[in-house]
């Protein structure tokens, strides 16, 4: 524990990242059980209230409390991004490890596919996938996971290629260590520092993609609150209630910044 604090003290990036994501995750967790106001309760009397102690971030066009909705929205975004990164990361490790270590024709094909997907704008690809599968939270998660898998495959694969010919791996092979054991016991622990950085970057991109999709109205459907959807609603009231757009927008920035500081911090730690 002491060691962790020592590291945080030295590494400002890590410290800032931990604090920012920590606050966001905490708010999201709390929002599961409690929000200051109901996220759906409308109040005609309180339409477009500016930020105050009563309504921290003000109220929207239906008189709903924006802070409460931002809490819920962050929760949705974090949940979706976590699942996306978990799925894509796991698939990335599996595919990247096997193709990177064994190479050959399968690797060649997988690489062509990942290259093509990587070259294609990710948000468009997610759009296409979601059209094919239909919208909804679950399909959104699956489509984003499909879109993000190639970037993990690439990173894991290149690490496995780098390490498969390392002297200590050649020696492990000479010792007669089995293939799966080499892959997951000998090589895998050595790629974690790189992998964690890419997980954090993945979070980053997943948050951006999720909010982008819901901004375009293709992601999570109402009445669930999401940051992107709030932003797109707020755009119509920019002149009357600029804070309405600012609150969800800055929350997205907060989340993304938190995760990118985390990834930078981890990178420097390694």
């Amino acid at each position, binding site marked *: 524990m002491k060691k962790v604090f020592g590291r945080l003290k030295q590494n400002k990036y890590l410290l800032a990242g931990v604090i920012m994501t920590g606050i966001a995750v905490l708010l999201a967790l709390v929002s599961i059980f409690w929000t200051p106001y109901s996220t759906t309760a409308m109040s005609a009397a309180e339409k477009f209230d500016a930020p105050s102690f009563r309504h921290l971030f003000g109220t929207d066009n239906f008189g709903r409390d924006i802070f409460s909705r931002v809490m819920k929205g962050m929760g949705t975004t974090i949940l979706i991004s976590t699942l996306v990164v978990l799925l894509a990361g796991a698939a990335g490790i599996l595919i990247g490890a096997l193709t990177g270590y064994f190479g050959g024709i399968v690797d060649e094909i997988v690489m062509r596919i990942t290259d093509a997907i990587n070259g294609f704008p990710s948000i468009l690809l997610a759009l296409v996938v979601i059209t094919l599968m239909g919208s909804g939270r679950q399909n959104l998660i699956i489509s984003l996971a499909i879109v993000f898998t190639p970037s993990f495959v690439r990173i894991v694969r290149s690490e496995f290629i780098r390490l498969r010919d390392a002297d*200590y791996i050649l020696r492990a092979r000479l010792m007669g260590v089995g293939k799966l054991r080499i892959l997951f016991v000998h090589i895998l622990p050595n790629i974690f520092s790189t992998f964690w950085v890419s997980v954090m970057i993945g979070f980053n991109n997943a948050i951006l993609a999720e909010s982008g999709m819901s901004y375009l109205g293709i992601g999570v459907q109402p009445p669930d609150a999401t940051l992107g959807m709030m932003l797109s609603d707020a755009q119509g009231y920019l002149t009357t209630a600029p804070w309405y757009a600012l609150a969800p927008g800055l929350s997205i920035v907060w989340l993304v910044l938190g995760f990118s500081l985390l990834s930078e911090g981890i990178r420097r730690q390694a």
Partner: protein
Amino acid sequence: MIKIENLSVAFDGTEVVKKLSLTIADGEIVGVVGESGSGKSVTALTMMGLVSEEATITSGKIWYDDTLLLEAGKPRDKALYRSFQGSKMSMIFQEPMTSLNPTKRVGNQVEEMLKLHTTDLTAKQMKEKVLEAFLSVGLKDAERVYECYPHQLSGGMRQRVMIAMAIILHPGLVVADEPTTALDVSVQSQIIRLLRKINKEQKNSMLFITHDLNLAKRLCNRVVVMKDGNVVESGTVNEIFDHPKEEYTRKLIEAVPSREKKMQRFSMNVGDIQNANGQNMPLQRPDILEVKDLNVSYMDGSNSLFSSKKKKQVVTGATFTMKQGEILGLVGESGCGKTTLSKAILGMNKDVEGSIIHHSNQPQMIFQDPYSSLNPAKTIGWLLQEPLRAAGLRDKQFEMTKADREAAAFDMLHKVGLSDKYFYRKSSQLSGGQRQRISIAQALITRPGLVIADEPVSALDVTIQAQIMELMRKLQEEMKLSFLFISHDINVIYQMSDRIMVMKEGRIVEIGETQEIFDNPKEAYTKQLLAEV
């Protein structure tokens, strides 16, 4: 001509050069020798005004003739230095590949010297001067070289370009920091000869920094021995090498593998049958490895759909046998196929023709680089047990209990001269020599009959080198091992091996008893190799 007085240089408060004084007379070649971390490079860089800005000069002065270049406590006068750098003092670095700008033609890079320090030359005259310099350092095809980028030249040629750059303005002082370390032995000799020739022709002083005592002995007039930032001893080459005063100097000289010290040779293998006169009979032990008509090739070219793959033959017609308990030395320059041959023997190269017959279990390997030989994610204890664990996973009959495995690991740790505490450490906490000990331990724990050691001591400082060689020899006798010992250093090979095999361009040119080969080399190439050191 150069006077360094009482120089101390510190990084982050720790002094890496301590109260060093050094003078270089006109036309003199002074060698600075020392192991890694002795502060020899920092001294040279400080003198050249190139030491990084994190370094602080805590005491001392540096003079060039009558000019005070540097004084402790005063900031480095960059403008003054710039008027000296290149024109009055120049430097040759260790890595000619990375020391040249990869995206500029080498001709232009040399020409930059003229652009910086002369005013009266036309573009044409400049180019001519560069071509002249190229010719004088032995780059015959000067016109072509002028147009080349660094990656298009060989290591030796690149270093010649560096030298041409350093001497084009006839500076009074040339500093050479390990200029031959990254090169092959034969190229190494050429560069040394070239430096001597330049010294004779241009009469410049040279400061030659090296870890290799043999080179210092061959090139220098005077030698300074450094250790931990201090000057241990200095004197003429004869004084230092023939009558060293200090214990450390003596230790350093002794550690250098050399043919002159026959006594250093280990005894012939125990268990040899001796005849009535007490002479060794030819080895009559069973073969452990038979290699016959072996061709090894690999696929050249990228893995693309369009580029056709070319088969490139690396080893041609290799035939030899190894006896049980023998150390066979394999010597040759880089790219001669030593490593490819050893990988084929280990069964790691599939593209082979001919036969390899093993009369032992799977051979193990020890690599050159102690830093990449051990898995950094695991503890030493885990690493030492892994071969046993793997054997158990492969075949139930080799399964061991955890306690037995640990006992075996501790036992092996002691055998390579390390104490129990290392069992719990990770390789990142170990020094290069210690890592190499662990590599050896890990290779030997399953008691293989044959071990291939690919340049196992080349990356180590001389004193450590000697210790590791001794350890390998000791374990070889204790555990009745056979070693295929690969090295580019003919002296190391001499000290280690019972028999020697010489390789050139993928072929075995000569094979025989060590003494025999050294006394009567038959092939021209072998003679050349022996003459060069």
